[in-house]
């Protein structure tokens, strides 16, 4: 296993942890943190391929990561605003209780 493969396996494991947390936890904040972790794992992939790729001077991997970080920050802000709105309506942030749209 060379270093690139090590980085990719690490990214896969981080993604697995984030996915398990997003599926298992019931607190909306912890689910959001799991999603953030999955985004970070994807960013790690970009950096690893940029580092060991054939043309690092093009900088595509780093640029993609910068844009992904910006979008993730926007997602976190909107997500946490939704958490606060959820709390205002049902006085807790358990996702199992957010069933108002259930048919």
């Amino acid at each position, binding site marked *: 296993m060379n270093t690139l493969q090590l980085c990719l396996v690490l990214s896969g494991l981080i*993604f697995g942890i984030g996915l398990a947390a997003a599926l298992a936890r019931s607190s909306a904040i912890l689910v959001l943190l799991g999603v953030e972790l999955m985004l970070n794992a994807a960013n790690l992939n970009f950096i690893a391929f*940029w580092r060991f790729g054939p043309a690092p001077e093009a*900088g595509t991997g*780093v640029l993609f990561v910068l844009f992904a970080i910006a979008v993730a920050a926007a997602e976190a802000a909107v997500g946490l*605003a*939704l958490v606060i709105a959820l709390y205002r309506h049902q006085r807790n942030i358990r996702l199992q209780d957010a069933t108002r749209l259930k048919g």
Partner: protein
Amino acid sequence: MNVVPLILGIVILASAGTALSLQNIVRSVLLLVLSWFGIAAFYLWAGAEFAAFAQALVYGGAVSMVVLFAVLLTRRGHLDTAVPPPPPGRLLGALLAGGAVAGVIAATVIRTPFASSSDEIPVLAVRRLGTLLMGPHAAALLVTGVLLTAALLGAVVIAAGAKDDKEGAP
């Protein structure tokens, strides 16, 4: 094989795994900050300094603070930051799903023959990054700026809530 990514990987995985299994949500966030800084250190090791500083500033500085504010704004009691553990069935399913995805990725990566990677760290100066952002990627930069503005305005509107939440309630 390099030792640095191995150590960083162990730190990141241990802190992230512990963070997302804790009951106390404030401790979860603080441990996740450690794992985000570990990822920034990984970027630094890979030679992407600008991305590393962006990661440390945005995640370690901004996102963690926003999450902590959300935790403090949504607790009921004085010390109510505990989250009950998930039921065993859902925990098992989630662990199976996460483990299956990670296992498939790891197996695929290990069995894929990658071209022998160079060991020299690529250099991407900030000046070059700036030229790239302002030149070929200027449109993407503008779109990201518009997206950030719209998302933050929307977040403020959602979090502030409509005034008739209190007045118009039947």
